[in-house]
């Protein structure tokens, strides 16, 4: 098979930001009619490279050639004009405007001078309809984009991206919020575009998706170019090795299990909890000293369950009992007072208070639990914080440093420290290892096991099913916002996948 013609060639791209060299001598070659995967751990430089290609940043060094011509995108608009379009993780449509308008925004067809020179709305809608038909997407162009489900917004966003005769289409984590059917629909569209000769750059962290749809892979690690490989010549272990930089064999240690024998009494017992549009009625029980893992595909309701249990969202039905007694659980403050804790998925948005110090962040939940009546003086906070920082191995310039200065992994540890300080009966962890490098991940998993061994009931949610399988004493499997079943420890990933698949058919 002869190689397809090169559409975009990026050579020796380097870019630094204050304090960090984000990219150094990175190469990227995109060919017509090919889907090219861009892979790398968090912090590898994928986002920076995309921002350079779309004109958000200029490279410090290096060159970009589009169809043989040297180009230097100055802004997203300019990049689009050159033929480089991007669809980002959040679909980035304008929710208050129609689909047609979203597709044509910035490129409106105009009425002739004699008819007023304004925007030609009829033509706008016609063009949108035609484009959607060409791409095989079934959407009403007059509908407001905000009213569409996320997956359809994604498809509309792709339509917009290719509306302007894009030669290069960049898809940045497009499947993060999609379920299996929606992913299938998106891949169909991608194949169609591939057939039309578009060069597609596909960024994802889902290995199976890479092998399903991509032709080539470029791997970045710590801002450096590791290599470009045809998919057929690099298998999954090899890919992971390239991304991580060391052989994985044996790197994943078994997490020491010391689960107590015999079932302990239920600490938290939720019956029939549900919330319209988020979670169907389900029962869940958490026992002291036990790690209950929650596995499921994206969109299966994992975070929604966590938020309902912690009363972050109001439940429509169901009761929750703590230690066998009915609990009034209407807001997070209630949950905290009852001895629950919650590490949210998005620690930047719902976890840390960036401007406050590490000490204050750690002490916050404990103080909240104590209320206004009792005061945790700064001196006491200091003692507490120092103890936990040492215990968890948090790397920080000091406990008075603003927590925003710490790295993601250390922020996560600090958040866990916050809840440890409250000696929780129940701790809910939503994606605690996300965005953390492998070494720190292992440490964290061990801490969590320690915590459970101490008697806390832990809810462990993760998108990485093998992680859930590894650490849990019991596994709750979710599918399409409902319970698919429960599995005992040692069930293995295959059993989990089977349970999800069975529920589907």
């Amino acid at each position, binding site marked *: 098979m002869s190689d397809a013609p090169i559409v975009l060639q990026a050579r020796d791209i380097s870019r630094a930001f204050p304090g960090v060299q984000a990219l150094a001598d990175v190469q990227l070659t995109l060919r017509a009619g090919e889907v090219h995967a861009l892979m790398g751990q968090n912090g590898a430089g994928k986002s920076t490279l995309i921002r350079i290609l779309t004109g958000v940043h200029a490279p410090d060094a290096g060159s970009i050639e589009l169809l043989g011509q040297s180009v230097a995108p100055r*802004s*997203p*608009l*300019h990049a*689009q004009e050159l033929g480089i379009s*991007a669809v*980002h993780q959040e679909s*980035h*449509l*304008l*929710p*208050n*405007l*129609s689909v047609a*308008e979203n597709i044509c*925004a*910035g490129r*409106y067809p105009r009425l002739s001078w004699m008819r*007023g020179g*304004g*925007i030609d709305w009829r033509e706008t809608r016609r063009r949108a309809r035609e484009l959607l038909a060409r791409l095989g997407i079934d959407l009403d162009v*007059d509908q*407001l984009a*905000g*009213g569409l*489900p996320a997956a359809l917004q994604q498809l509309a966003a792709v339509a*917009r991206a290719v509306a302007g005769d894009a030669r290069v289409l960049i898809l940045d984590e497009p499947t993060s919020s999609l379920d299996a059917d929606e992913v299938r629909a998106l891949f169909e569209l991608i194949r169609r575009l591939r057939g039309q000769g578009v060069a597609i750059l596909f960024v994802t962290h889902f290995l199976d998706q890479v092998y399903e749809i991509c032709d080539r892979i470029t791997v970045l690690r710590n801002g450096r170019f590791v290599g470009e490989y045809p998919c057929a010549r690099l298998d999954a272990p090899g890919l992971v090795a390239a991304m991580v930089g060391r052989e994985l064999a044996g790197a994943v240690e078994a997490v020491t299990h010391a689960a107590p024998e015999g079932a302990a009494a239920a600490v938290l017992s939720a019956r029939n909890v549900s919330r*319209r*549009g988020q979670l169907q009625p389900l029962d869940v029980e958490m026992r002291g000293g036990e790690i209950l893992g929650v596995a499921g595909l994206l969109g299966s309701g994992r975070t929604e369950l966590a938020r309902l249990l912690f009363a972050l969202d109001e439940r429509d039905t169901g009761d929750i009992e703590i230690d066998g007694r009915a609990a009034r659980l209407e807001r997070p403050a209630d949950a905290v007072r009852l001895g629950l804790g919650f590490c949210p998925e998005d620690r930047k948005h719902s976890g840390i208070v960036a401007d406050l110090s590490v000490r204050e962040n750690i002490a916050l939940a404990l103080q909240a639990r104590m209320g206004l009546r009792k005061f945790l003086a700064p001196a006491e906070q200091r003692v507490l914080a120092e103890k936990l920082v040492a215990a968890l191995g948090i790397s920080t310039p000091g406990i008075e440093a603003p927590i925003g200065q710490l790295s993601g992994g250390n922020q996560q540890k600090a958040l866990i420290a916050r809840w440890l300080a409250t000696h929780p009966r129940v701790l809910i962890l939503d994606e605690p290892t996300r965005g953390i490098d492998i070494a720190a991940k292992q440490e964290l998993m061990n801490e969590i096991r320690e915590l459970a061994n101490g008697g806390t009931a832990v809810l462990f949610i993760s998108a990485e099913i093998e992680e859930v399988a590894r650490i849990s004493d019991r596994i709750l499997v979710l599918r399409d916002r409902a319970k698919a079943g429960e599995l005992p420890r040692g069930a293995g990933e295959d059993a989990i996948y089977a349970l999800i698949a069975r529920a589907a058919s």
Partner: protein
Amino acid sequence: MNRRLLPLAVTILLFIGMATFGSVRYDGFLSLQVFLNLLIDNSFLCVAAVGMTFVILSGGIDLSVGAVMAFTTTLCAALLRAGWNPYATMAVALVLGAGFGAAQGYLIQRFRLAPFIVTLAGMFLARGCSYLISTESVPIDDATWVAIAQARIPLGFGGSLTVGALLAIATVLAAMRLAHATEFGRTVYAIGGDENSARLMGLAVNRARTGVYLLSGFTAALAGIVMSFYMLSGYSLHAVGLELDAIAAVVIGGTLLAGGVGYVAGTLFGVLILGIIQTLIAFDGTLSSWWTRIVVGVLLLLFCLLQRLFEKRSRRLA
């Protein structure tokens, strides 16, 4: 499509309801001139509120409108008194207003300052400059000005409009076209919907944001000119609190304060509703005029609460 028009429909229904109530309760309410007076007496508010609509659609706010209006009246009075040509005076006023607005817009957009505080300082500045020109009320007796102020354009059926009212109507029509048929207008809506997405789409966000404040400054100056026709004087204490009335008119007109949703036509009805409240109170005769402030406040509250309900409902259903 229909969901977007709902707030506007509510506003129009409210106006019709109030008009009906008035004509049933008071004699002489249902006359053409009474309705035309709504527009005549509130022509300057209408012009200012139109500019404010764009600012609010973009998710911002402009508190300097009343002060710019007052400044315009004192400036015009002073220039006319100094013997300036009336049309040149108008031109200077409009250019200064637009420039002032553009400067505010630039600060907001370039340095990402909060619109509230920038236009608040702008309010101080404009009124301060107005005081510097004159602290007393300066009457305007320029012949052209007076002629324009007193002109009445007959509409038939015994009704007539002032130049000010005509300017108000023209402003509304021009703004409607701007909002619906130009790139600028759509970009304003886009910014109000999701600024980040608008930027990523490559829309000229920065220019549009500076533009809405320029427009607001321009309409404020134009409103000031119309006000000077109405009052035939230049006074630094004119239009105190008028920006609040403008905001109220825009909100009651169905534009969401968060931005992105709303129609210029709605603002026109918002202004008319404010006018009709005052007319109703005047016709009643027993209520003091302070009730206007209270009713406007209550209406503003109701509409804001309705908007919140609307937002909550649509988020739940999505």
